[in-house]
């Protein structure tokens, strides 16, 4: 009789990495659709091209590493990285820029460290940070919210030409992000005067706010499906709001309102889709609270004082550095132990020491 052997447990829940990643992809849909709706076809092109590059690059590196292709490609993780990097980019970037970003994300940040599960840094944010530093002009030319079909909207053909790098976008098509504009308002200008001067193309603030709310809807889906836990988004956004409120309370004439910080940039997107990348985030639930809080704090440090208007990528990458440390100091208290272990305790092996 030939009976099957297996180690316990012999049953398992119907779940898989591919399914987890699939839900993440599904949850990005509201954000992607609303961003496309406000900022034009370019957003969609970016996202699709980045996702395709994710698959192609992943397959290429797997071949070089002589790993089986099928199972790894089916886990959808490269697709997620591509989509997340793609939607982070301005609508007018050319294809080669996306390719550079995806090489940094998939090849350098992910596979050079050992592939899925081994990367200490968030791959999409490594790609984004590299592009932001290397191509600052392309990366700060955001589209004005002209929509898909309006009178000022960019036709799909024009968007494709921008994408192929054949033409540069006209000035009328571009506009600063609200964070960028507010950052460069100048010391002498008061916040109230700045807003009174109509610094942004009409509808920009509403567009950014609605896109942020769409990402929030996607994040709620992830929470409801238990793909992510509440710890990172809540602590990140909570800390961000707290610090922003404190700053605004101290000097409302120069600091933006907390609501502006929450909805004017990539805070919501970052809190639900970027910082929650489980591989590069802190491990324990308590650790995740610290990790999220650290990101929120760093965002609020960099936004008013740093050189870049939005700071999600840098904040996430900096906190990625801190993850091993956080992990050692935030272990939960195990059943039957008086207190939680903290840090690394090296067992002294001394001959004179009495054995316990």
């Amino acid at each position, binding site marked *: *009789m030939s*009976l099957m052997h297996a*180690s316990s*447990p012999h049953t*398992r829940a119907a779940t898989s990495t591919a399914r987890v990643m699939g839900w993440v992809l599904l949850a990005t849909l509201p954000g992607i659709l609303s961003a496309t709706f406000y900022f034009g076809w370019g957003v969609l092109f970016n996202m699709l091209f980045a996702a395709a590059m994710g698959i192609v690059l992943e397959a290429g590196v797997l071949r070089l590493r002589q790993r089986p292709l099928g199972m790894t490609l089916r886990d959808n993780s490269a697709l997620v990285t591509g989509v997340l990097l793609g939607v982070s980019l301005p609508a007018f970037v050319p294809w080669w820029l996306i390719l550079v970003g995806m090489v940094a994300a998939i090849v350098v940040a992910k596979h050079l460290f050992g592939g899925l599960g081994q990367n200490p840094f968030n791959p999409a944010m490594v790609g984004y940070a590299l592009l932001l530093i290397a191509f600052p002009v392309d990366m700060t030319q955001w589209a004005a919210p002209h929509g898909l079909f309006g009178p000022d909207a960019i036709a799909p053909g024009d968007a494709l030409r921008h994408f192929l790098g054949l033409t540069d976008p006209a000035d009328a098509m571009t506009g600063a992000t609200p964070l960028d504009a507010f950052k460069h308002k100048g010391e002498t200008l008061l916040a109230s005067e700045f807003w009174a001067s109509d610094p942004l193309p009409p509808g920009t603030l509403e567009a950014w706010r609605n896109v942020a709310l769409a990402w929030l809807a996607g994040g709620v889906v992830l929470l409801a499906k238990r*793909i992510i836990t509440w710890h990172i988004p809540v602590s990140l956004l909570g800390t961000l709001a707290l610090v922003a409120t404190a700053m605004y309370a101290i000097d409302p004439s120069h600091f933006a309102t907390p609501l502006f910080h929450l909805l004017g940039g990539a805070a919501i997107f970052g809190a639900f889709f970027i910082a929650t990348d489980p591989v590069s985030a802190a491990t324990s639930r308590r650790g995740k609270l610290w990790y999220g809080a650290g990101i929120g704090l760093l965002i609020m440090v960099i936004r008013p004082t740093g050189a870049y208007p939005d700071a999600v990528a840098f904040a996430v990458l900096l906190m990625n550095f801190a993850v091993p440390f956080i992990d050692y100091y935030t272990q939960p208290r195990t*059943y039957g132990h008086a207190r939680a272990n903290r840090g690394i305790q090296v*067992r002294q092996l001394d001959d004179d020491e009495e054995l316990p």
Partner: protein
Amino acid sequence: MADFDFPGGIMPPERKALSNRAPLIEAPLPARVVLPLTQHVGQPAEPVVTVGQTVRTGEIVACAQGMISAPVHASITGSVTAIEERAVPHPSAAVGESKALCIVIEGNGQDDDWLRMPPLDWRSTGDEFLIERLQSSGVVGLGGAGFPTAVKAQVRRRHTIDTLIVNAAECEPYITADDLTLRTHPGDVLEGARMLARLCGAERILIGIEDNKPEAIAALRRTLSGTVGDIPVELKIVATRYPSGGERQLVQKLTGREVPSRGLPADVGVLCHNPGTLLASLRAVRDGEPMISRIVTLTGEALARPGNLQTRLGTPLHELLSVAGLRPERLSQLILGGPMMGFTLDSDALPLVKTANCLIAGTADEFPPAPAEQPCIRCGACETVCPASLLPQQLYWFSKSREHDKAELFNLFDCIECGACAYVCPSHIPLVQYYRAAKGEIRLREREARKAEHARHRFEFRQARMAREEAEKEARRQARLAQAKASRSAPEQRKTAVPSVPSDTPQRDSQDSAAELKKLKIAQAAAKAAVRKAEKALARASEGGQHPSADLDDLETQLATARENLQATEARLAALQSQTTPAATQPVPTTKTESAAPASQPSSTGATTGDAAKQVRQRKIAVASAQAAYRKAEKALESAMAQNDDAALAAAQQKLERTQGNLERARKALEEAEATASEHKDTSTP
């Protein structure tokens, strides 16, 4: 701040309806049984029958060995046809079985001639008789661990117990043996609980049962309302969530107490028993029936008639499977135990053992092969379900990379291997397998490190012994030299027996020897301190009772080494003193330690009468101290026996033997000395 819930847990499909709808039935009497001698935790039982011998049902065929063990009884009437190694179910083996000594009995499948013990009324029987009965009837924990119930019943010798928990949670899917036990024999289980509660001194009985067993709950309610006992019984219904039947989890759920890491529920005043164990205990006492059968669940999609069977121990599993209507063409996996923590079997030719509560004959659809393992993405699903608040993803990481020190730091050994983490893992990583492998490697490494340490200590002891012998030889030589010198310079000393005065000493190298003397005295003090430290360490270890006996042996070796060192120093000191005071013929002073004193006394044949008298006195002291040590060792042995502690017992026995040897030697030395003294008396007073 007591938390009455455990974190995590999962809710896998229960699949209990497969087997809990049929009533409990008696399996047909097997014509042949194979009875392994290792169906319990502890020492294997020792066969007391010979091949060819006829045995009756319930007759003892193998008796318990050592402190933690259980006897084995014939489960059918017939004759012993073999006592040999056979394959038995075993979780730690890769294929779910291993070889163990078994007693094979063949009957004719009809005769069932019982040999019962006299029935006892537990309420009017003393504790020691009840424990004796539990021991002789071979009752062990039927929940899976197989710990001898008689040993557990003596827990109050070392712990104060206030709560007895009846663990009827039965949280694993498929298994319904406890459910059916409670539905069929609720009164007997309760009575058994009351009996064991009295034995352990519990003030209350809590029955923990999951809410997915309404019939069992109703049966218990009916029984509870009909009986009144002196110990309050409380039925605690807990929500169905795996692993609420884990001992530690249930203790927390019912009492809010946490069993300390590496401790026992008894450490927090709780004792847990499985309903089947309680039933078997009561039957052993009330009916005089030793443990020869158990209730086992036969379930799985490959069976036409799944259900629960009251089955004789040692019945081949394939007989049980055919009773339950096995469809062999559908069978793909045979699991002993539940689907979460059970283990797969390689064959159905194995015997049913005391700890087997469930046998699942699964089809390929029911238990599909595990999907390929994918990289861990640290999603944290495992952390969410871990009932011990561990970080399974980190433990996996460290286990896989063999960073065992870090795995231990993250409390690997608090993992109860419930399998909840592997159940929810989206990457299909067999996490429990990794943890088991890491635990095994750590245990192996520790064992090897201990072995190397022991070898080193034994070597050190040998060195010390040789050094001591050398020093004593030297001391004797010096003594002889001094004696010769003294007798040459002052021959009248022999008669007057006046000890020499230091002023007689030739003043040679006085400064050198003074410095040397000082050095040796310091060394002596240090050696004494080392002996005391070793003694203390040994005493502490034998009190603790958690150390394996090998550790105690090692501590004994270390103590002996320290004593040898002390003796060597003292011999050297004495030699030096005899150099400076030539008439002092006592080369080796007696030490306080019992082993040192008498054995090392060289018989000085040319002693004066005074010396002889002095020697007699000294040896009398040595005999007295050896006697004291012997008495102390006797007392230690008694207390070790009372505490029921194997390790301490072994140590105490060793000590007793050693002190006895010392005492005899001391007595012999005394006799010798007395003989010489009387000789001297004869010659010196004519």
